């Protein structure tokens, strides 16, 4: 379950930002997690709750914004939706697809005080 490591990474970012952006409490966090990022959202939410206990983000609300998987079909020369990495092109049915989106994991926005 690497979601625990990811949650620790999120808390570390929040702590580093607290120094430069001068806040002492995190109220809400918007995380952008791509559909192809290999993250189990329930496990991540659970891990965040655990690692943020007694920290500046204790009790913070985490919103997880999913970004759809996208790819470039080499056969059709166009961008296509890619719900999973093993889906074929919805137009030609082939698998010659380079992933172009949906793999990111970012802390997008914060509400702090």
């Amino acid at each position, binding site marked *: *379950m*690497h979601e625990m*490591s*990811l949650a620790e*990474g*999120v808390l*570390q*970012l929040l702590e580093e*930002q607290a120094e430069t*952006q*001068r*806040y002492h409490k995190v*109220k809400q966090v918007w*995380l952008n997690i791509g559909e*192809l*990022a*290999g993250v189990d959202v329930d496990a991540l939410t659970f891990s965040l709750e655990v690692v943020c206990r007694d920290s500046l983000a204790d009790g913070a609300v985490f919103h997880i914004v999913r970004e759809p998987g996208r790819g470039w079909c*080499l056969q059709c020369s166009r961008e296509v939706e890619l719900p*999973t*990495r*093993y889906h*074929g092109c919805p137009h030609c049915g082939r*698998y*010659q*697809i*380079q*992933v172009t989106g949906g793999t*990111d*994991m*970012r*802390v*997008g*926005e*914060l*509400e*702090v*005080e």
Partner: protein
Amino acid sequence: MCTDCGCGHDPLHAGGAPRRMRIELDILAKNNRLASDNRAWLAERGIFALNLVSSPGSGKTTLLTETIRQLDDTLVYVIEGDQQTDNDAQRIREAGAPAVQINTGKGCHLDAHMVGQALQSLNPSPSSLLLIENVGNLVCPASFDLGEAHKVVILSVTEGEDKPIKYPDMFAAADLMLLNKVDLLPYLDFDVDACIDYARRVNPNIQVLQVSARKGDGMDAWLDWLIKGMNRCQLASERDENSD
């Protein structure tokens, strides 16, 4: 007065009312930074580093010991990742390569920080081969760059041929798939062509080699792949040295 929302606080908003800010930072940024440091350290010394990933029991350690024995005039170093015990590092040392064991405890993958520390204690020689055996797990190690030149995924034919689509992230992250234990194919229902087709669905560029570490089938092609990679890596480091 603050310029963001007009509240009465100082310009840096040091106290008081909640405020929203957009930061857009990669959650893996710290690991990626440390992985870049490892990559630069390895490149400077012309060391060819591979991150070997697979499920437990795919035959990774046997593949490593056989590789070390057969590359007898090449300097090979190994970083071993397991949750517990140093059994694998001992097997590697018996095969003749210096090895450092990392025990991740409850951790399910190696990260760039652990590998950076292991590099300091292992101190591999310039122009050598560094094999990093990740924790046996087809999920978590996919997301963590260690600074390697390539991820190599090992799949044994005693597992299902649909592993590449069941665990697509790992097969998408790898540049090479080694299909191991092919000497057992006559006794199994494993469909090699279907397996390779599945792997190419998630990663059209993945290279595939069929090997049996125990019996020796296909090992020449694997050793050849390693030596070519080492030569490329060494040339790149010499070029960088000359351009400095």
